[in-house]
């Protein structure tokens, strides 16, 4: 008996007698002797609750989190404030502990949340239909590729190099199975090169993929890029940061067929990369090829309004090998945080938060680029994130600068050289509402000194 099971010796005796066996081992007699373990697992003994807490706290203590330093890291996940109310709602047993609403009569809470979530995502993206969540951003983009493949059966994908590197990789990994060719279009001055884009797209292209804003923080000309793809009958997929969509034009208004994205920015914790949620919205003609759960409205036997999972014949448990996706468990609880967060911000708050990010980001960009040894990588409009280049020796130089800043409690951002060889000494700096002007001023001072010290150190050894 562990603390999570309840069989006393008396229970055990009565239960075995009812079953008609003499021992628990007899219940496992169908396992052939050759594959029985015959020993205890080589794992340590169990621990008390307080010991487990202490152990997990010790591990947590060896991480430097956004609680411990002034953090300008972004690149797909951002240190936004999560309202206390969300912790309370996500901790409620009624949201935390049920499963997928297979019995709608006792799952109206979860189903209505899905319906509200779908409504909010449609509003944000300007598209007709949304599902109730997929895993996270990059796999959502790959799922959009599968929808395109089912739709037009063409064999090529064209993806902007501005799309998150993890999304580009997930698309390659997951489309390798169904044998797609993936072509990447380079950036020019921080945005997708329109000429290279146009020359890459022809009638063999199933779908094109655009990041908005892109990984360097730049706002893309989504309408222009989409128009080129549509001329050739390719589906247009846009991966958008939902928290910028109070400021930026809705992808649905710009010729986009499918809008996907990472939902972490909407009320979800960083959690070292997950769980968060992905969203997936599309024009209505694609609804029967969408992946994942979709909630719909209906009535009960007495005519009361209610909600159910619907269009389930798309899904794996019914259509099996012909399903539009294999997804089953998605990210319902994280999507709940997402819709509550959007309602918490509200109609004006989404715009106000966006404007705050735009103003502080502009301030930070100007201030950083005024530092000797720091230059902008591009001059495109940005919302919440921008890319600069440090006058140091490539990625290793940037990493040494980051080490110097860490000592002073500042994390200036993501070293772009980790994923973009063409920006080896690049730094991606992200701003949220939690990074005040004072924090930005601190960054300017600390980064300036670190860059100067790095240049001095290299100069001294040279």
């Amino acid at each position, binding site marked *: *008996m*562990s603390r*999570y099971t309840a069989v006393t010796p008396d229970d055990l005796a009565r239960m075995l007698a009812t079953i008609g*066996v003499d021992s628990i081992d007899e*219940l496992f007699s*169908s396992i052939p002797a*050759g594959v029985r373990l015959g020993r205890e*697992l080589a794992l*340590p003994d*169990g*621990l008390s*609750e307080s010991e487990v*807490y202490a*152990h*997990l706290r010790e591990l*947590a203590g*060896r991480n430097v*989190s956004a609680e*411990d330093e002034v*953090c300008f890291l*972004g690149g797909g996940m951002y240190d936004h404030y999560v309202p206390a109310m969300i912790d*309370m709602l996500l901790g409620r047993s009624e949201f*935390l502990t049920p*499963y997928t609403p297979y*019995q*709608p009569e*006792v799952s*109206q809470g979860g189903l209505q949340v899905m*319906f509200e979530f779908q*409504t909010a995502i449609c509003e944000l993206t300007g598209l007709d239909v949304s599902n*109730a969540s997929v895993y996270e951003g990059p796999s959502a983009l790959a799922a959009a590729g599968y929808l395109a493949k089912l739709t037009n059966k063409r064999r090529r994908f064209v993806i902007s190099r501005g799309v998150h590197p*993890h999304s580009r990789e*997930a698309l390659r*990994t997951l489309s390798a199975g169904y044998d797609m060719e993936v072509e990447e279009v380079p950036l020019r001055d921080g945005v997708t090169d329109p000429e290279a884009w146009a020359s890459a797209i022809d009638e063999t292209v199933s779908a094109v993929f655009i990041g908005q804003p892109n990984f360097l923080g730049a706002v893309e000309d989504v309408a222009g890029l989409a128009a080129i793809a549509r001329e050739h009958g390719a589906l247009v997929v846009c991966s958008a940061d939902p928290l910028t969509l109070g400021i*930026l*034009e809705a992808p649905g*208004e710009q010729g986009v067929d499918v809008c996907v994205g990472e939902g972490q920015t909407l009320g979800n*914790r960083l*959690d*070292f990369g*997950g*769980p968060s*949620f992905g969203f997936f919205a599309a024009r209505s003609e694609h609804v029967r090829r969408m992946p994942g759960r979709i909630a719909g*409205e209906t009535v009960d036997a007495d005519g*009361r309004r209610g909600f159910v999972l619907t269009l389930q014949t798309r899904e*794996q448990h019914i*259509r099996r*090998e012909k399903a539009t996706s*294999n*997804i*089953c468990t998605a*990210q319902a*609880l994280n999507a709940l945080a997402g819709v509550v967060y959007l*309602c918490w911000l509200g*109609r*004006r708050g*989404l715009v106000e938060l966006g404007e*705050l990010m735009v103003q502080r980001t*502009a301030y930070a960009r100007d201030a950083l680029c005024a530092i000797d040894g720091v230059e902008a990588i591009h001059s495109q*409009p940005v919302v919440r994130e921008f890319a600069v280049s440090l006058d140091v020796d490539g990625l290793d130089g940037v990493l040494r600068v980051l080490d110097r800043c860490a000592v002073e409690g500042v994390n200036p951002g993501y070293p772009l050289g980790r994923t973009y060889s063409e920006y080896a000494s690049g730094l991606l700096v992200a701003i949220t509402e939690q990074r005040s002007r004072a924090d930005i001023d601190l960054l300017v001072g600390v980064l300036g000194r670190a860059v100067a010290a790095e240049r001095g150190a290299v100069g001294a050894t040279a």
Partner: protein
Amino acid sequence: MSVQSRPGSHETAMQRDRAETIFAKGAPGRRAFVAPAIDVPVRPLDELIPAGMRRAREPRLPEVSEPELVRHYVNLSRRNFDLDSGFYPLGSCTMKHNPRLHERVAALPGHARLHPFQEPSRAQGALELMWRLERALSEIAGLPHVSLQPSAGSHGELAGVLLTRAYHDARGEHRTKVLTPDTAHGTNPATVTMAGYDVVKVGIDANGGVDIEDLRAKADTDVACLMLTNPSTLGLFDENIEEIAKIVHDVGATLYYDGANLNAVMGKSRPGDMGFDIVHFNLHKTFTQPHGGGGPGSGPIAVSDRVEPFLPHPVIVRRRVGDDEQNGQDHRHPADPADTGSEIFDLDHDRPQSIGRLRGFQGNYGCFVRSYAYICSLGAAGLRDVSEVAVLNANYLLARLGELGVLDLLTPAYGRVDHVNGGEDVAESPGARRKWGCMHEFVLSGAPMKRELKIRTLDLAKRLLDHGVHPPTVYFPLVVEEALLIEPTETETRETLDRFAESLAEILREAREDPEIARGAPYTTPVRRLDEGAAAKRPVLRESL
């Protein structure tokens, strides 16, 4: 219980409370959010982002106060049934208790506010936790290598079939088919198609196991993989597993283990020892990540040596300080004290044969924290106890249903064991050996009930809602008519199992007198039976604003 369904006359308070979405609430100007002041010099927006790129029309989000928002969602939560409130024997989903300790440790800022792009040298606690969890899962599966990256079971399956493809490609072999038994979860065939293979179904034998002759006939060198869950979705351990593994390996294919049913065999038998090459775990089933109303989940995979080079990247490595040797296979106990200072953990992206990434970052770390805490709490003996009690509870419930006569109308389709012990005469005498057996779950067929009482499994399930329990999985597996898949888990007490058995007996008794009651059920839930046909015919998928 009245079978009237006139609205109003017998409505519960919750039924009177008609569904109204958050979009229908609030008023212009209300807000829950107040933005921090803009503390930098404000520039005209047109200078920063050209008007043509900016949004022309605001998204029509609700305008509500914080108290309104809290009340709306708390009231919605009350329209859900949940595991903390009652019995939830949803077969194949392993609805076990979710300890609150896990929520507490996952919320520690060192875990919850850790940015996924933090430099590995400043995320040592997280990487060490993941490494320890990998080692523990490796030991449980009996396979040496683990990737935590997949987001859920179906994502793990896709990883596994893509690994299979990479493995065969590297050997210059181009295989086209993947075998799945008729009893497979729908995710298996759906995954096979997404990975570009053709599904070939394998039949099942009279005991619910893989039909060995059919497997032998279909296993050829075009077969890339056999996907199997063991125990199967019928809740039965396939006694021919060693022979199955041999047949599959003899044609050079991989053997994939769908870990949905791992809760039956922890510390008793290991997929690696059964001959499986690739295993996925459902942390949200076996390792008690809360189900969240449909996620988040997490679907780590464990693999054999021959599949290891192809694992998704990055992989977590441990390095001794001052030692270049990467040590991903160290067999130290996962909860041994940290050897801080003499070893460092890192993410290795330099994996030339890797299938690549399946998703962003390192996987659902918050789920890893919870599942690792669970393994630390239970230890080796505790995990074995979990599987033993899960199997005990399922067999006890099955036996109680037999005692109450329920199995006359809801019959086990497979899993007869009394022939081993001397046949039915013995089985029917008091205190005799058991007639039916199962592992951690069992499947019943409602076909006799439908024939005799004229109620369907769906009606029975809906009537169970009025008894305050969540119904089992219904109409799965597909090979069993009017199926009912029951998984009590190790969480439940004997008393709960007794009450559930009595509820089923009571519903059958009631239906014999008046089947209309079950056909009209449920009566006490926030809404009554919902018209799913209408929802699908004319889909309304969002609030109209």
